[in-house]
């Protein structure tokens, strides 16, 4: 009996690569409480004593502890949560959120990249095109989809399907979860950079609403390659960065182990990005991170998509594209300048713009 129990206890440990039942290193106390509760449950089943009151007390303690930890995670801890092996992946979203999913394969040029999945489906009552990056759950799947690192054909596939969606007016939802585009010989030979660049060039022109959501890791150009749209949202404990913290530490600190410091400096958490005006919305995660409750996470994402799609569909297409372009052009403009541009009355703005042009034109070349 006891032997079987220990086997069952071990099973969740086998499921993920973390040795202590899916707890991250900064969750020591939570893990302790978990093991205490398990012990009590085991005892009550063996000896038939009712420990439920005790267990409930421990649960309450655990909840307060989780709240305390997760309300002020450091940047590096956020990165760890975003990389948690039990975190919901694209396949979970497809299972729980998308009805009647029909996958579309192939870029019609080279191959079918498993790191980027594209397909049609329904979210709520809307038909949408899903473009998402998958990391895979089992080792076999992970290898098949290259640990979520897309190759150029993945980006070309994404663009081809997005153009197809544009033709039939199907809104696009992209779910971003990648450590970065794959740095390999084949990827370079087939033009990784060019594939991403063309996506960045074409996505602002697509005449359908586009919603981009970072659900886990938003790694640099690999994430941006399917991340240009009308709205960019990010899950609470996901991260989005120009370079991996390890990479940044290796270059600027000349020491890869300084990644926690680099993560802090890069301002890659949802909170910081929202403050800087680089994402439009932060989708909240259930207590203790998405990996503790897949259904709630997926539900929150679904709610956001349905609501945002409704909003975007009300806008005229021309205005939608105009707004998208304006939004892109304002990236990095300081908040003060943004406010100034916003508050200036229309006429004044035109006047100012007109004044700005001749000063540039006055600088006639010295020699023709």
């Amino acid at each position, binding site marked *: 009996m006891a032997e079987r129990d220990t086997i069952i206890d071990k099973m969740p440990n086998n499921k993920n690569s973390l040795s202590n039942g899916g707890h991250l290193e900064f969750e020591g106390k939570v893990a302790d409480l978990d093991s205490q509760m398990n012990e009590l449950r085991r005892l009550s089943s063996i000896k038939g004593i009712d420990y439920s009151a005790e267990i409930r007390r421990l649960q309450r303690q655990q909840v307060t502890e989780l709240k305390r930890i997760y309300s002020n995670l450091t940047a590096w801890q956020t990165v760890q949560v975003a990389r948690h092996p039990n975190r919901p992946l694209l396949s979970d979203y497809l299972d729980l959120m998308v009805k009647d999913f029909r996958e579309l394969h192939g870029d019609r040029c080279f191959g079918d990249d498993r790191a980027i999945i594209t397909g049609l489906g329904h979210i709520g009552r809307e038909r949408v095109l899903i473009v998402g990056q998958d990391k895979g759950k089992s080792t076999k799947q992970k290898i098949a989809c290259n640990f979520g690192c897309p190759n150029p054909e993945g980006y070309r596939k994404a663009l081809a399907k997005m153009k197809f969606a544009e033709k039939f007016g199907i809104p696009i939802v992209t779910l971003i979860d990648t450590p970065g585009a794959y740095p390999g010989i084949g990827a370079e030979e087939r*033009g990784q950079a060019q594939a991403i660049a063309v996506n*960045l060039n074409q996505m602002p022109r697509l005449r359908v609403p586009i919603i981009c959501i970072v659900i886990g890791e938003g790694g*640099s150009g690999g994430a941006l*390659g399917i991340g240009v749209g009308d709205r960019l949202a990010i899950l609470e404990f996901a991260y989005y960065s*120009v370079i991996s913290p390890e990479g940044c530490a290796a270059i600027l600190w000349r020491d890869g182990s300084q990644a926690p410091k680099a993560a802090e*400096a890069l301002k890659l958490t949802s909170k910081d990005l929202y403050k800087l005006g680089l994402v439009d919305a932060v989708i909240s995660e259930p207590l203790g991170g998405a990996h503790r409750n897949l259904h709630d996470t997926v539900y929150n994402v679904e709610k956001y998509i349905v609501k945002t799609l409704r909003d975007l569909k009300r806008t005229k297409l021309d205005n939608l594209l105009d707004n998208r*372009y304006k939004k892109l*052009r304002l990236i990095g403009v300081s908040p003060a300048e943004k406010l100034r541009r916003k508050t200036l009355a229309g006429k004044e703005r035109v006047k100012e713009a007109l004044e700005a042009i001749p000063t540039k034109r006055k600088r006639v070349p010295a*020699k*023709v």
Partner: protein
Amino acid sequence: MPTTAKQPPAQVRGLNNNMGKEVKSKWNGFSLKPRKEMPEGLWVRCPGCEHMLYKSAVEKNLNVCPECNHHFRIEAATRIKYLADEDSFQEILGDLTTDDPLGFKFRDTTYKQRIKDDVKKSGVKEAMLIGKAFIKGRGIILAVMEPNFLMGSMGFVVGEKLCAAIDMAMAEKLPLVAVCCSGGARMHEGVVSLGQMAKTSAALAKFDEAGGLYICVLTDPTTGGVTASFATLGDCLIAEPGALIGFAGPRTIAETIKIELPEGFQTSEFMLEHGFLDMIVNRRDLRSEIARLIDYCQK
């Protein structure tokens, strides 16, 4: 000699450290001693063919090695001098500077301090210069990147300047010529610099719709976020011989896949062979080649 073979100077340095027998025999009688006694800045060693070259001779040759056609990296001002008609370059938005959106600190220094140092070192205020210029009498909007300013990385200012250049080219119906030379997106600005990739690409999409001609010159090195955005979106892509062009840096790739990279990987010739460039043009022919392209594309 192949322009692609970039022998690491480490070999040479290794020689200096241990004058062992077998090493000596490789050196075909050329002593290393004079290297120490040579006056600074008079000679340069060509990384392509390892020849010692007289610096002014190289400069006269547009900073190209006369022996092996290795193209040295040149700063923005020199590039403009070589490319544009004499004194025709009129800079725009020259004093646009970054306001350090993240408040980035690393080791004992800050991003702002780093910028100050690089302004002093390179003599320019940002990693890109834009302006109106003439090439053989043809008016263009010219954007040139400066490799000595934080590796020519793209931050907010570079993105903003390029967008301004695109807007101007659109307004004045002039061709846009961008000379790229960059290590990629600037990590000191985090997602702001990542956003510049999307921003410049979106602006280029508008320019494309308006029917503008965009010629992109890729020089050594063009990697990372710049290659993955405006550098590969030109109507016409020209590269200098032997330039490093790619998405991930060769070191990153070697570390990831743990095998030795093939000879000539990620050079201009490699990119041309794989169909990502229109042509490879020597530095001395660049001017006339661009002028000819502009003539062809006139409506």
